[in-house]
């Protein structure tokens, strides 16, 4: 039951500015994911919301109350750490009940709340064990249980799944998503894992160098990246970029000349650009088609990785540009083959010299779709 509002939040360690003015509105019951490369400030921002780092400038409010100077315990938040940070000398029961014990809650009420959280997380048989005797996934559950027991307004997660193996990560991802819909709580989640961000988030916040690059739903970021950084950061393998000159401007879009000579109409608003300008064409590997398409590129395959369902081909154009193409798993491409790659203008992005994307004429139908949470929004 809480919205979190950040107004021009700044953080500096000495002279080094780490967070350079972040404005963000996180709605009640929203699942927000902070993503960005290492050192972008996403963890620092989360720790500032938690109260573990002081706020150098700006205003942070949770549930309408300014919390800049409140201690972590008074903010009504709970945090799950990357290393779980369980207390090794306490049993699972004591770990989960620690905050209530400090708050002088009566013992039978602590027991009731701990048992309830344990039931939700299926930790009942483990309550009297020490953290040492638990597996990684179980420890993670206890850490989440410790957060649930506090009944916080906001859950904070700091890369909670990065210490788990791949299979467990998928399982816990689903559990956290389910927990979000069960508890109807506001959640803020930091990760560097794109899949986690895309699958769990209502809203993704992309950070770089202490600045918010873009805020939006996962598919909005995918289909309508605001700039070259977001376009390159969201999506895997990363987007291909080609330098292209503008050859014609029309109401239906901007026509550019591809390397090799063919023309491609990209349905974007021209904005201020003119014929002859150099733009950057962005095309995702999964949108490069083997054979057909509006425009074509001739290339030589340097490396082919077969994943079974799909195949990544690392190719070189005749002018030396390197591209990655994701083609069908049944493709017969082999190293040193010459292949023809097709492009559809509708799947492409154009970026000006300032790195900003030219606005698409039509919004993608899924870009503004909210995720389906019963009771949310």
């Amino acid at each position: 039951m809480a919205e979190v509002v950040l107004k021009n939040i700044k953080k500096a360690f000495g002279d080094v500015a780490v967070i350079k003015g972040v404005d963000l509105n996180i709605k009640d019951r929203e699942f927000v994911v902070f993503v960005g490369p290492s050192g972008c400030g996403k963890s620092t921002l989360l720790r500032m919301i938690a109260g573990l780092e002081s706020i150098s400038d700006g205003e942070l409010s949770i549930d309408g109350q300014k919390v800049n100077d409140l201690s972590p315990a008074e903010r009504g938040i709970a945090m799950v750490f990357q290393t779980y940070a369980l207390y090794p000398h306490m049993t699972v029961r004591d770990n989960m009940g620690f905050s209530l014990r400090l708050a002088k809650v009566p013992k039978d009420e602590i027991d009731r709340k701990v048992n309830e959280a344990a039931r939700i997380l299926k930790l009942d048989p483990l309550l009297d064990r020490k953290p040492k005797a638990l597996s990684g996934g179980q420890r993670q559950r206890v850490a989440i249980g410790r957060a649930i027991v506090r009944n916080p307004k906001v859950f904070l997660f700091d890369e909670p799944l990065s210490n788990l193996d791949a299979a467990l990560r998928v399982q816990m991802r689903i559990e956290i998503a389910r927990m979000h819909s069960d508890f109807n709580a506001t959640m803020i989640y930091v990760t560097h894992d794109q899949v986690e961000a895309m699958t769990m988030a209502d809203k993704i916040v992309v950070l770089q160098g202490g600045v918010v690059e873009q805020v939006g739903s996962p598919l909005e970021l995918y289909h309508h990246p605001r700039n070259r950084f977001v376009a390159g950061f969201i999506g895997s393998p990363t987007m291909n970029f080609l330098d292209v000159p503008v050859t014609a401007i029309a109401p239906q879009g901007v026509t550019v000349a591809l390397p090799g000579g063919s023309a491609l109409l990209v349905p974007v608003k021209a904005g201020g650009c003119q014929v002859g300008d150099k733009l950057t064409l962005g095309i995702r590997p999964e949108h490069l088609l083997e054979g057909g398409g509006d425009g074509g590129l001739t290339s030589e395959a340097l490396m082919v990785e077969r994943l079974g369902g799909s195949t990544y081909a690392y190719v070189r154009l005749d002018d030396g540009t390197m591209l990655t193409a994701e083609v069908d798993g049944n493709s017969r491409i082999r190293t040193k083959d010459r292949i023809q790659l097709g492009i559809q203008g509708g799947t492409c992005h154009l970026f000006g010299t300032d790195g900003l994307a030219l606005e698409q004429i039509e919004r993608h139908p899924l870009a503004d779709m909210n995720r389906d949470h019963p009771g949310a929004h």
Partner: protein
Amino acid sequence: MTTLAPTHPATKPARKNREVDTRPLLWPSIAVLFLWMIVPLAMTLYFSVIRYNLLSPDLTGFVGLENYAFLFDDPALWTSLWNTLVLVGSVLIITVVFGTLFAVLYNQEFPGRGVARLLVIAPFFVMPTVSALVWKNMMMHPVYGLIAWLQSLLGIQPTDWFSNYPMLAVIIIIAWQWVPFAFLILLTAIQSLDTEQKEAARIDGAGPLAMFFYITLPHLSRAISVVIMIETIFLLTIFAEIYVTTAGGPGTATTNLAWLIYSVGLLQFDVGYASAGGIIAVVLANIVAIFLVRTVSRNLQQA
């Protein structure tokens, strides 16, 4: 294992070749240990059952347990055992309490922390006789001592520490020497405390006191048990400080077991009697050691 063996017959001889008998390699150390420990122990045992007084060399011969009988009748033995207990116990309590407090304090960030840490550790580098002399002549001396001077500033009659509170004075000196040891071990232990754990506790609402009692102290428990074990072994044989300051007195007020053995053997020259005392000390030390080693190994197994 038994079911696997027939399916892998080829691995067996290979394993046998690798199993070199390593026991002979231990023999040199065992031999040195034997010379170092068993021979003196055997000699002490032998001396403790014969009549052997350097002042009357003509009186010799096997006396059985007579030395022990005299010893157990001697009220000085029981006084010295009690004094040893008081000394070891008090010093342990003081060093662990102050060591922990200093470790917590000097784990905080503040300017000049490196120098401050060095100063806390410094007493450990002063040899026991020197530090005891410094305390005796410069700190606790009733006329020239720093404490007497401070007392005179406040208009209080200076205390003659070694006459009026001899045991307390000795405890203070020894504790001063051993706090750095506890501090060093506990500081390294406190540094290994996970910062995320402390942050989790802060979010759970732990203030500084709750943090100390619920997070820091449990984290230090194993290091504290190590400090107690190592210090006990050294404190049972405290001698130099007593020799320099009180010489076991006044009367037997600061006579511990080590001093008792020394005074009987090398002041009264009754080697047989002193050897019997030595054997008592060995037995006591071993009783303590058994308990301590068991505690520590239980702690290590939990890790």
